């Protein structure tokens, strides 16, 4: 393919850079086909999401058509196999909610503290050892967690639960009480004149200290005397789910904390703020959206978990009395789906079968919304970090 090119009076032979028509056509077709193929394969995930929605909704719809919405969402009567079946799933919704709430109560403070520690406190070399621990926690299969909850933790809770709770209260309560008292005495002392200051300070420390000690002892004692009827309950599951949600929360919020620039931190340090003040007042607010995303992802992990709650939540479709009693057994949506599907008639498709899809549909919609929200938060935190 030689073309002669006119260059300032002389002729030089130079191969053409242009494609021949056929080659161009071939290349276009290959590009379009290749791109199309790749896009098609990539769209598979989109198709999967679409199909999941369609197929879950398709089998959930007959239930809503047949039984309406009211009973499902407001009644706690769950008698799917009675002669006159009742499908009130409120207790399950409540169970999922309280278990998730408990898990978040465990995982969020611990997770954020750990993330802060990883990003700002411990040296890099040490971090290399902590990361695998988090990864291992994330990697342990849920059924192993469930097995632990059922076979190790539940009996322990049943026999020693009261003492365990008492010890936990002491471990958490004592240092926090000490801190609160120190701060209070400091703040109160500042308002008085110099003459009374140290007197007042010691007075406050002694009075509040003995009060706190007394309170802790009373609480500890009453907890020690507590008898837990069954080790498989909402409390047990909350702890385990909290541990399972930890890795997600730690890694996502650590990312968010890392993306807050050095400049911001240095600015605060330069003004004489301590590390704690810098992190609480500057870094955490700046990383807010990322941390919110982390919490939402943790919620999703907890609410979608099946095996642990199925094995160790007690599976009693009731709302505990009083409702915040975490030591009662509960039943969640996921566990109900897993447990009842075996008995539901799949082939003819009874209400019993469709109600489980209705539950799955609710879970699906919830996780979809959570996901959208968390994505938004993550995007926002990235934007902030970027500019």
């Amino acid at each position, binding site marked *: 393919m030689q073309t002669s090119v006119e260059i300032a*009076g002389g002729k030089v032979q130079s191969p053409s*850079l242009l*494609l021949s028509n056929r080659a161009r056509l071939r290349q276009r077709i290959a590009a379009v086909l290749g791109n199309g193929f790749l896009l098609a394969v990539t769209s598979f995930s989109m198709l999967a999401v679409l199909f999941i929605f369609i197929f879950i909704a398709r089998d959930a719809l007959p239930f809503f058509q047949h039984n309406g919405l009211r009973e499902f969402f407001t009644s706690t009567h769950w008698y799917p196999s009675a002669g006159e079946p009742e499908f009130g799933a409120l207790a399950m919704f409540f169970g999922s909610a309280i278990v998730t709430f408990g898990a978040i109560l465990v995982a969020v403070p611990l997770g954020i503290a750990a993330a802060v520690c990883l990003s700002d406190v411990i040296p890099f070399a040490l971090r290399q050892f902590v990361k695998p621990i988090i990864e291992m926690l994330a990697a342990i299969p849920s059924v192993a967690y469930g097995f632990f909850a059922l076979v190790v933790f539940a009996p322990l809770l049943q026999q020693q639960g009261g003492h365990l709770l008492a010890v936990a209260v002491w471990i958490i309560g004592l240092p926090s009480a000490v801190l609160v008292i120190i701060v209070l005495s400091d703040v109160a002392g500042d308002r008085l004149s110099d003459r009374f200051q140290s007197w007042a300070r010691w007075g406050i420390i002694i009075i509040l200290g003995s009060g706190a000690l007394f309170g802790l002892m009373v609480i500890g004692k009453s907890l020690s005397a507590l008898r837990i009827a069954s080790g498989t309950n909402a409390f047990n599951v909350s702890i385990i789910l909290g541990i399972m949600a930890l890795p997600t929360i730690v890694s996502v919020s650590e990312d968010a904390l890392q993306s807050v620039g050095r400049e911001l931190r240095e600015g605060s340090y330069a003004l004489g703020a301590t590390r704690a003040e810098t992190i609480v007042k500057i870094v955490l607010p700046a990383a807010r959206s990322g941390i919110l995303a982390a919490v939402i992802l943790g919620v999703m992990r907890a609410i979608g978990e099946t095996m642990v709650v199925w094995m160790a939540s007690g599976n009693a479709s009731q709302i505990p009395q009083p409702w915040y009693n975490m030591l009662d057994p509960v039943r969640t949506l996921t566990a109900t789906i897993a447990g009842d599907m075996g008995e539901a008639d799949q082939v003819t498709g009874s209400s019993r079968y469709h109600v489980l899809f209705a539950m799955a549909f609710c879970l699906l919609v919830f996780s979809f919304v959570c996901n959208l929200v968390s994505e938004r938060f993550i995007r926002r935190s990235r934007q902030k970090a970027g500019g």
Partner: protein
Amino acid sequence: MKPLDMVIADRPDVRSGNNAGRTPDERTHVAVKVFSVFYRANQAVKDVTFNIPAGYVTAIIGPSGCGKSTILRAINRMNDLVPGCYVKGELLFDGQNVYNPDVDVVMLRRRVGMVFQKPNPFPKSIFDNVAYGPRLHSRLNQGELAEIVERSLVDAALWDEVKDRLDDNALSLSGGQQQRLCIARVLAVDPEILLMDEPTSALDPRATLRIENLIAELRGRYTIIIVTHNMQQAARVSDFTAFMYEGALIEFGPTKEIFTKPTHKQTNDYITGRFG
């Protein structure tokens, strides 16, 4: 080939920076005509016009951000990779507009080789690095391939150092060796033009010297266009020099003249170190 001084003496057009009217025996290899490059709204190269003669070493100098790398990367259309980048004007390679939509970019890049700022050998063996290009473009048996690899490595002045360990990973070489390997990799596809984008900026002085010697050896066989921020280097290795500032071409001419009696004040300020 005529001695350089004679060529320059013959060519008043080169001296003036406008070498449109040229002697017939000299061939313009790359002609840049009122050429601009935009990154989205930002114009990185502004209406630049100059001709790069075949077989010589042309240096493009200027302070960082002046568009010298951009214009270099425009020649083999590496800017296509940058999202939002588009061009105006003409850039002719052997008289053919490189930005003609029907141009076979693969063919173009094969004929216009490029060496990058940081040595970037593939994480493969030394042999496979050099053989990468030839394997792409033609079906060769092992013997022919080995021949090409050896010739390219010899040309890149690396053969003696690596001939006993061609199967070693290329990343085990030193920085300077890696850069010469990259040059050998380009030579293996037998290009007509060699683009060098600050090829020694990541190297120590000794390695730099070897690359400069190599450029001197390759001169004449290839048209070499080198972007450098190092004025001494431009003075040492190049026959022609283009000085760019803020996207515009300020001055183009034989290196000797640019460095001894520049016609523009900005050029003078730059080469004497007042800015940049």
